[in-house]
C-alpha cells in the first residue's frame, strides 16, 4: 500500500502522460470571487485523484491556481502570506532568477502570460480523441454560461503523429522514482526520491517536510507547477543540423548527440552508433542505464539535454545531490507537427512548440536552479559556460561539445531553438484543498 494519500493528490502529479495523447489547456480569469468559488465547487467532482494512477485509463482533468488566482478567490491574507515568495511574485517577476532575459524576456511573451491574467489552469489529458472531447466538454460546461469566470486562452495539445515533440523526438521518458507512490519503478529510474520533494506534507530529501502553505488543509497533498510555453524554431534547428552534417546518417547522429537519445527515444548509452527504434519504444529498457562506462561523455555528451537534466552517476566537478533537483515533467506538444523539411526562417514562426508542466513541492526553487545552473551554464559539468542545446538561451558563437577520440568536436552556431513565450507559477491543490477554497466565506 502506498503511504501517499493518493485519493487526495491530483492525478497529474503521478499519472504519466498517455501515449498517444490528446488534451487541452484552458486558462481562466476569475472576475468575481464568489463566482470563482462557485466554479471550483462545480469543477471539484470532475478533478481526478491519483488513486490507482498506474492503471487508470480514463481521461482526466487537472486544476492549478496562480497567486493572483488565490487572491481573486478571496483567500485570507495570513494564508496568502504563507506561500513561498517566488510563487507570490510570479514567474515573470522572477525573470532574472530564471535567466528569462533577452529573447526570453517576459516583455516578449504571448498574451495572456506574465500579466496576472492567468488565475486558473485546467488541463485535460486523454489517450483517445473521443474521451478527450468528453473531458473538455465537461470542463467547459463548468465555465460557460455561469458568468464571473472568463476563458483567457484555450490551447489544444497532443494528437501528434507518433506522439513526437516539435523537433521529432519521442519525449517524456525518464521521470523521477517517487517513494511510496504505489507502483513498481521502471528499470533505470534510479533510487526512490522522498515523496516530500514532489508532494507537500511528506518528508523531503533533508528528512523533514518542506514548508507548507497554511492552513494545513490547503497545503497538504498539494504541490507547485511551473508552466512554461515554448515556441520551437524548427527551421533554425533543422538548418543547424544540415549545416553541421553531410548526410542523413550524420544528421540523425548529431540530433541524438544533442539530446542523448535518438529521436526514437533509444538512449545513446545502449545504442551508441545506430538507432534502435524497438529499444526506444520499450519503457522496460529505454531508461535502464547509467554513466559508469561513459564518464567522459563519448557516448552521451556531458552537455547534452538528457545528461544535464538528470546527471545520474556522472562524475561532476561541483558537489551535487542529483536527487535534490529532480522535477516531474508533463510535456505537451502543440501546433503544427514536426517537419524535417522545414528550413526557412518563416518555418521558425509557424505556431508549434511545447507547454511544459514542471511539478514539484519546490518547483520554483528547482526551476530557478535548473535554468541558471544546469541549462544556462556548463560549469557543473566542467563545460565552462556552454548551455543546454535545446532549452538554453543562446548568444552568437555558442557551442556544443561532442567528446570523442582523438579530440573533441566543438560545433559552433547553437541558437535558441526553443524560445520562451510565456510562463506562470501555479499551485496544484489537493482535492480537499479545492473544496476548502470553494467553501471560503466572504
Amino acid at each position, binding site marked *: 500500500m502506498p503511504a501517499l494519500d493518493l485519493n487526495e493528490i491530483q492525478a497529474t502529479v503521478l499519472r504519466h502522460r498517455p501515449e498517444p495523447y490528446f488534451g487541452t489547456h484552458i486558462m481562466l480569469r476569475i472576475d468575481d470571487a464568489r463566482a470563482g468559488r462557485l466554479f471550483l465547487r462545480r469543477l471539484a467532482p470532475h478533478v481526478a485523484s491519483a488513486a490507482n494512477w498506474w492503471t487508470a485509463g480514463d481521461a482526466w482533468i487537472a486544476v492549478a491556481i496562480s497567486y493572483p488566482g488565490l487572491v481573486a478567490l478571496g483567500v485570507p491574507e495570513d494564508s496568502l502570506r504563507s506561500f513561498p515568495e517566488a510563487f507570490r511574485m510570479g514567474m515573470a517577476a522572477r525573470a*532574472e532568477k530564471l535567466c528569462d532575459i533577452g529573447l526570453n524576456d517576459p516583455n516578449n511573451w504571448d498574451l495572456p502570460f506574465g500579466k496576472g491574467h492567468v488565475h486558473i489552469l485546467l488541463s485535460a489529458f486523454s489517450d483517445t480523441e473521443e474521451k478527450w472531447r468528453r473531458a473538455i466538454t465537461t470542463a467547459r460546461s463548468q465555465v460557460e454560461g455561469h458568468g464571473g469566470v472568463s476563458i483567457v486562452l484555450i490551447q489544444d495539445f497532443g494528437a501528434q503523429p507518433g506522439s513526437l515533440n516539435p523537433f521529432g523526438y519521442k519525449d517524456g521518458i525518464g521521470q523521477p522514482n517517487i517513494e511510496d507512490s504505489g507502483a513498481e519503478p521502471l528499470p533505470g529510474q534510479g533510487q526512490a526520491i522522498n515523496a516530500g520533494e514532489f508532494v507537500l506534507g511528506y518528508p523531503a*530529501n*533533508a*528528512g*523533514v517536510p*518542506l*514548508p507548507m502553505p497554511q492552513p494545513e488543509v490547503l497545503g497538504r497533498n498539494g504541490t507547485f507547477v511551473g508552466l512554461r510555453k515554448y515556441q520551437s524554431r524548427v527551421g533554425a534547428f533543422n538548418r543547424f543540423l544540415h549545416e553541421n552534417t553531410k548526410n542523413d546518417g550524420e544528421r540523425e547522429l548529431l540530433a541524438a548527440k544533442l539530446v542523448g537519445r535518438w529521436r526514437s527515444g533509444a538512449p545513446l548509452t545502449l545504442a551508441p552508433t545506430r538507432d534502435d527504434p524497438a529499444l526506444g519504444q520499450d519503457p522496460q529498457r529505454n531508461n535502464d542505464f547509467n554513466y559508469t562506462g561513459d564518464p567522459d561523455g563519448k557516448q552521451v555528451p556531458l552537455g547534452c539535454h538528457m545528461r544535464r537534466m538528470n546527471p545520474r552517476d556522472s562524475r*561532476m*566537478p*561541483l*558537489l*551535487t*545531490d542529483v*536527487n*535534490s533537483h529532480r522535477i516531474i515533467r508533463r510535456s505537451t506538444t502543440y501546433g503544427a507537427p514536426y517537419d524535417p523539411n522545414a528550413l526557412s526562417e518563416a518555418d521558425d514562426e509557424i505556431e508549434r512548440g511545447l507547454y511544459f508542466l514542471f511539478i514539484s513541492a519546490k518547483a520554483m*526553487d528547482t526551476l*530557478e*536552479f535548473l535554468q*541558471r*545552473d544546469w541549462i544556462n*551554464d556548463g*560549469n557543473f559539468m*566542467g563545460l*565552462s*559556460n556552454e548551455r543546454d542545446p535545446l532549452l538554453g538561451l543562446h548568444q552568437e558563437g555558442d557551442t556544443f561539445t561532442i567528446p570523442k577520440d582523438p579530440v573533441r568536436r566543438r560545433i559552433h552556431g547553437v541558437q535558441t531553438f526553443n524560445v520562451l513565450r510565456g510562463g506562470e507559477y501555479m499551485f496544484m491543490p489537493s482535492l480537499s484543498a479545492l473544496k476548502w477554497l470553494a467553501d471560503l466565506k466572504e
Partner: protein
Amino acid sequence: MTIDTVQKTPSEQTSEFERKVQKLREIYADAGPISKTALENVIRGLNAGGPEAASEAPKESAGRIGARQGRVSELTVIAPLKPGGAKRMRAFFETLHGNVGNEAVDRVGTVHDMRWVFLDNDTKLLFASTYDGDWDPYIDDFATKIPDILDLQFGELEGWPGVRNPAVKDFIVKYQVQSYFWYVASPNLTAVETKRLERVGKALDEFLDKVGE
C-alpha cells in the same frame, strides 16, 4: 544579477571626473600628510594618463546581498560566537579540517577561498569567502552531502539553526555584511575552470618539452 552602466560623452566624463576629484580633495582636507601627499601623487598620475581612468566599473550583486564580478561572488559574515565556541572551533580545525574539511570543500567545487577570523576576544567570528555563482541554490546539496562538515564549520555561531534547516539561508543573510570594495583578478574564471586550465597548461608544457627535445 543587475548591471548599471552609465554612458556619457568623453567631455562629460572628464568634467564630471574633475568635479569628483575636487570633492575628494575637499574630503581629504582633514587627512594627515601621508594620505594627502599620496592622494596628490595619484591624481597627478591620472592626469597624465587621460580621462579613461574615470570609467565606472559595472556593479553586480550576488543573490540577496554580497557583490559579484563576472562569475565570481563574495560572502562576508560577522556573527557572535557561543561561549567557548572559538576554543572548540580551533580544536576542530587543527585536528580535522586539514583533511576531511579541505576535502569536503574541494568537492564543493565552487569555492576559491575561505577564511575564518576570530574577533573581539573570541566573541565573534568573521568568515569571508570567494566562490562561483550563488550559494543559496546549493544549500540543499550541502545539506544532504556534507551537512556535518558545515555544522562543524559554523555550529559554534550563536543561533546557527543547522544546515538541514531551511531557516539557515535567512540566518546567513542576517549576519552577512556587504564588502565595500573588492578586487578580483580573473572574474570570468570559475574554480573549476582554473583547475582545468592548470591541467591544460601542464599538459601543454609536457607536450612542448617533448617537441623541443
